[in-house]
């Protein structure tokens, strides 16, 4: 890439370079913005929300931003005092995520039905490979817990932002690839379906709405990363309206032996042969 010009240089010798720098800055801002969203979502699911965290979430600015994207909490979140809210959410958290009969936000549980299965170990290895060690919060957390996985992507994004700041594109690309890979192999396989489940199962609007936010954010991230063919294995497959389904085969196509040569062979007159419309097949190659 072309060398960035020093700021003290009064002459902008290369407009393309300036534009690249602006792109980088924008990209960096985007990374940091995304990292923040990951951190917020991680904070929602990794453990019971603290009063500080809740206070920050109830900041009018943030509430408005969430409202702009269709996230609207009920009075149970907005009206209660913080201590009461924290207590109520601790109970809801236990019911949804941390006691018998709930829906543990653990990839192993969602995809295999049991704690500590392959995803647990795979994810732990990824963290280690990328130089991360888990530290204990208020409680022990599995490596494939939703909050941990989101936190990991947040870390990658922050490192990406740092790489961009020093214009270290190889590192940035590598981290971007890691993020995509992590989504393709882990988060993307369950988060969309899971968020739908929590949305349905929550009694409190906080978890209902944050689950919706998680689901929407996940879809946006997947689209932005170009992972459009990523299948959610936790009942998260998209429901495509029938009208949008493009047929790749002709359901009227007769079984073998019904084509004109076959018919002739069976002695059917040419007058009895049907005209069979041919529908061209779509290109099945993956795009992107």
């Amino acid at each position: 890439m072309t060398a960035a010009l020093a700021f003290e240089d009064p002459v902008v010798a290369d407009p393309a370079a300036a534009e690249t720098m602006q792109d980088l800055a924008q990209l960096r801002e985007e990374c940091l913005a995304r990292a923040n969203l990951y951190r917020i979502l991680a904070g929602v699911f990794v453990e019971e929300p603290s009063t500080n965290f809740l206070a920050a979430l109830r900041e009018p600015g943030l509430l408005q931003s969430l409202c702009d994207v269709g996230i609207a909490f009920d009075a149970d979140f907005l009206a209660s005092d913080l201590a009461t809210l924290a207590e109520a959410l601790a109970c809801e958290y236990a019911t949804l995520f941390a006691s018998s009969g709930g829906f543990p936000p653990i990839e192993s549980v969602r995809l295999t039905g049991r704690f500590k299965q392959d995803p647990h170990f795979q994810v732990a290895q990824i963290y280690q490979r990328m130089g991360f060690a888990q530290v204990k919060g208020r409680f022990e957390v599995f490596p494939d817990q939703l909050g941990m996985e989101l936190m990991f992507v947040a870390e990658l994004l922050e490192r990406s932002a740092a790489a961009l700041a020093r214009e270290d594109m190889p590192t940035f690309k590598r981290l971007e690839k890691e993020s995509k890979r992590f989504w393709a192999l882990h988060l993307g396989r369950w988060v969309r379906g899971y968020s739908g489940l929590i949305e349905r199962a929550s009694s409190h609007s906080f978890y209902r709405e944050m689950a919706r936010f998680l689901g929407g954010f996940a879809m946006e991230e997947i689209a932005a990363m170009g992972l459009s063919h990523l299948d959610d294995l936790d009942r998260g497959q998209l429901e495509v309206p029938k009208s949008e389904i493009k047929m790749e085969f002709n359901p009227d196509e007769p079984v073998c032996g019904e084509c004109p040569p076959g018919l002739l062979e069976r002695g059917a007159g040419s007058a009895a042969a049907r005209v069979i419309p041919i529908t061209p097949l779509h290109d099945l190659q993956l795009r992107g």
Partner: protein
Amino acid sequence: MKIPSLKRRTFLQVSAGTGAAAATAPRLLHAMENDLGGKDIGPVTAVERRAVPTNCHVCNIQDGAIAYLENDRVVKLEGNPEHVSTRGRLCAKGNSGMWYSYDPDRILYPLKRVGARGEGKWKRITWDEALTELTQKLDAAIKEDPNTIMMKYGRNRTGGTLDRFMQTLGSATVVNHTSVCESSKKVGMEPTWGPDIETPDFANAKYVLNFGSNVLEASYFHNPLSQRVTEGRIDNQMKIVTFDVRLSNTAGFSDEWIPVFPGTDGAVALAMGNVILREDMQDSDFITNWTNVTVAELKAHYQQYTPEWASKISGVPVETIERVAREFATAKPATLFTYRGPAKHLYGSYNEKACMMLPIMTGNVEKKGGYCLPRGMGWPQPMPEPGKPAKGSYLSHPPDYPLAAHKVSHLVPFWIAEGKQKINVYFTYQDNAVYTNPGSMAVWGKLYKDEKLIPYLVSMSPFMGEETALADLILPDCPYLERWEPESMPNSLWPWLGIRQPVHKALGESRENRIMLRDIIHKLDPDGKRGMKQFWNFKDGEDYMRHHFDNVPGLKEAGGLNFLKQHGVWPIYGKLNPKTGKVSDKTGREIQAEYGLYKKEISAADMTGATVDKAGTISKNGKAIGVKRDGKNYVGFPTGNRVINVRIDQWAEYGFNPMPTFKRIPWHESMKDDELILSTFKLNVMKQSRTAAVKWLAEIAHSNPAWMNPETAAKMGVKTGDLVRVESAVGYLVTKAYVTEGIHPKVVSIPTGFGHWEYGRLATLKLKSKKSDASHGQDDPDLNNVWWDDKGVHPNNIIPVVADPIGGSQGWYDTVVKVTKAGPTDKYGDTEGSWEKHVAAFKETMRYAYTGDLHRKMHPEMTAWAGPESVKHKAGGEH
């Protein structure tokens, strides 16, 4: 080189002459599946899996097991081929043990109740928060009276830790579960010959009498004993005769299944004794030298128990009683086994005693192929040990049941409700009395929901069972694959010591019991000033095990705990022979057990200072240590007088018959023609309450229709699958019928382990309810494949308490019921029990205690007894 031109037909013809050459060519590939076990290769990774030996704890047989791990995850469980008792075999339950570790409904964090008890609302709290709250409650309770702290446990394999904990707190209020298990069997046996169980040498027996056990599916000790039963059958052409109300798998395996009226096994056994004695088939030498009665006394006593008398009571034909008695007495060697059929009744202790008299009077005790003493091993406790509590506990040693050495736990709710003992803090460990005990939700559920009777309920459990769901505080325990525990079970003729060791790291914030209890004590007494901490000075579970095992003679030389960590068991008596499936020593011969343990001679050193009385009892330091017979000093039996007590004088002190006897259950005598007796039984894949959530086991059995005889069913117009209403004096249930000839016509029998209303999404089938729609992932290979809708109906709500006044056992198989076709408003699964009616049943059973008004009526032969006031010394004692 010209390549031979071969058509297919031609080369196949060539192969016709290659047999000999092919046979003698080297074979260098061996199929691993033909090995005996002990190692395992991953089918995908092709890498040898890490093998960690342990002892199973899905049920209570403690089979030797090996856990195979990939990446710290248990992927397979198999038997331990080095274990002399179970010889590399593990039953279906043991193979499924990893389900406990990874169960998605497992409790992984301390939980504090929010809302009403049983509402299902919890808050996750840290261990520090949990311990702070708990110790505040304990402090207050200790100040008031340490006995207001209660520990009730179900399955306790901690090796002494629970007792240490309660003694540290100064509380004597420790109650086990044994009265709903087999306490009357124990109490029938212990004063008779010392230990609480027998080891029948099935493998070498020629004849087996089986009273009420289904050893091929359940009972102590299913896995090791069923192997030996099969060996006896095949190798010795052993004959086995089973008395049971039901055609169990064991009865079906037997040469004869003799359906017997519930609770009358003792009468049949006494009548068989009558035949043996009247026809002089007894072993007079053994009776004279090794029991506390003479042959003449025994003959005189047994005269009253005629086959005609027993036939009338039991329904067993006279000819059958006489024939089987003769066969048993003349087949040498012969053995006998009982499990729960005789014991779980009012006067179950008498039944048990009557049955064990048969091998005693025929001299089959401690013979090869006979009725042998159990062989177990013990281990020392870490020092120092806390002293015994200052004051006794009513609940722990109820004065109305002085002979019930294993307590009467199933009456505890009533005694608490009566105010017999105040409770402030109630601990429950590996217990689920709300499900497993008579009365179930109607009794124990009511007790636990009452915050005045049980102000603070703490459950130490990894699972949200019916009892844990009512707790105030849940402390997440570890399932067995994550725990350290010392182990030994008398389940073979070769004693062994084993361990349970963590095969993988504990999940979440679970803590194994001894660590949890240590942490509670350390919180109560952080600087040791209260004198509690000194009893809990160990680093971790492994350190605690070193205190147990590093100084056991023999094991110490072999390497102590390190040996056990490597092999899972000690001693290792030999190698498993792939041809025979038995254990062979270094010479290749099958290992032989030692018999005649009571005839081991006392050493000269031990005889120094000993005295011998006229009866030949050898005493030293005020204690009997042996018996002199024919000039030799033998150790005898582990009883107070070192002989077998046919006559139990201690029983007579309380107005019970000291000699073998039988008592009919009064309400069986007066039951109407259209009434039946309800019994319950265990399937081979279910046990107590802990297996319904194990998918692999639930696939095999997940519902429990009521067995009834076609004769009975025809009277009601019922066929298999029809709904029936089963009504007792305390409640009713609605379930499906299973009509079969394999059940006594006067019995209806329901398998247990089903009908959960807690214990996770699989046990309750909540994964099928609307709220739990998609509660599991779509690719969950197990929960996506639950094809059944029927989780069964639990019978315990309608079973009233009955307590054997001697042994304390619950009379599980005594309930009189009326069974009718279900009514128009009856729905499958309806069940109701009434607390008030259960209380009435409790009051009724107390009338049979030695202090009750029916005791004398039931013992007309004891008219000389001077009454409860005449009792001079306390009996009982803990086990």
